[in-house]
């Protein structure tokens, strides 16, 4: 599972460099996220701009990561492509996450919120 983390203004930005988060990689995605979020940043921004496809297993994995972060830490989403956005909307998970058009907007939004 290709994913990379970088620090930007107190935020940890994690970019998924895979076209799909589906049942075949959901576990690896969760593991990767747990490793990368060992970093103590309170706000994690997940950059999904390279992800063309996410199924319900992928969605479940994103939710699981968010719950794993626990209280006091936040997982925001950025750069969702249309097909990924659709899954979040259909399952109403779009109301659970803060969603930004891209990481810059997310960092700005995060700066405002904090």
């Amino acid at each position, binding site marked *: 599972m290709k994913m990379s983390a970088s620090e930007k203004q107190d935020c940890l930005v994690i970019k998924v460099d895979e076209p*799909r988060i*589906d*049942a*075949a990689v959901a576990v690896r995605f969760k593991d990767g996220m747990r490793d990368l979020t060992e970093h103590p940043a309170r706000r994690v921004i997940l950059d999904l701009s390279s992800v063309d*496809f996410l*199924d*319900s*297993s992928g*969605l*479940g*994995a994103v*939710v*699981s990561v*968010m*719950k794993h972060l626990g*209280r006091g830490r936040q997982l925001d989403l950025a750069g969702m492509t*249309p*097909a990924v956005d*659709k*899954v979040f909307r*259909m*399952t*109403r*998970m779009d*109301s*659970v996450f803060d969603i930004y058009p891209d990481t810059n907007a997310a960092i700005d939004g995060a700066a405002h919120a904090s």
Partner: protein
Amino acid sequence: MLSRTAFRATFENVRLAIERAMTTLEPLHLQPEEASSIELVLAEALNNVVEHAYAPGDEGHIKLVLRHGRAGLLIEIRDNGRPMPNGRAPLGDNPKDYARADDLPEGGFGWFLIRELARDLVYDRENGENFLIFRMAIGRR
């Protein structure tokens, strides 16, 4: 018929089968919205077979048939795994508005998505085989 394939029931094979299916559908010049719905419904239905119909370690197989007609795209999925709960395809739970993060479900969306995206779904058990057929309403040309 657009395509007929059979493969061993693994998540990796489902991914490959979906990739092939989407290539097969290219000549239909689907709207991106239509294509992504088909891709999603295929993932949900096929991964469900891997996850629920077969026990881990089972040498299970999946058959996938795609047909195209004026009524849209007809998707037929067969497997030899265990039957659906109560012999019926699950209705799928409607998503709720979640009050607390701790309550958030991490699964159980599969059948809800299938029901939302697919039409005229019929599930049947025939000679020890699960038979699932449904239609995707795609642009008539």
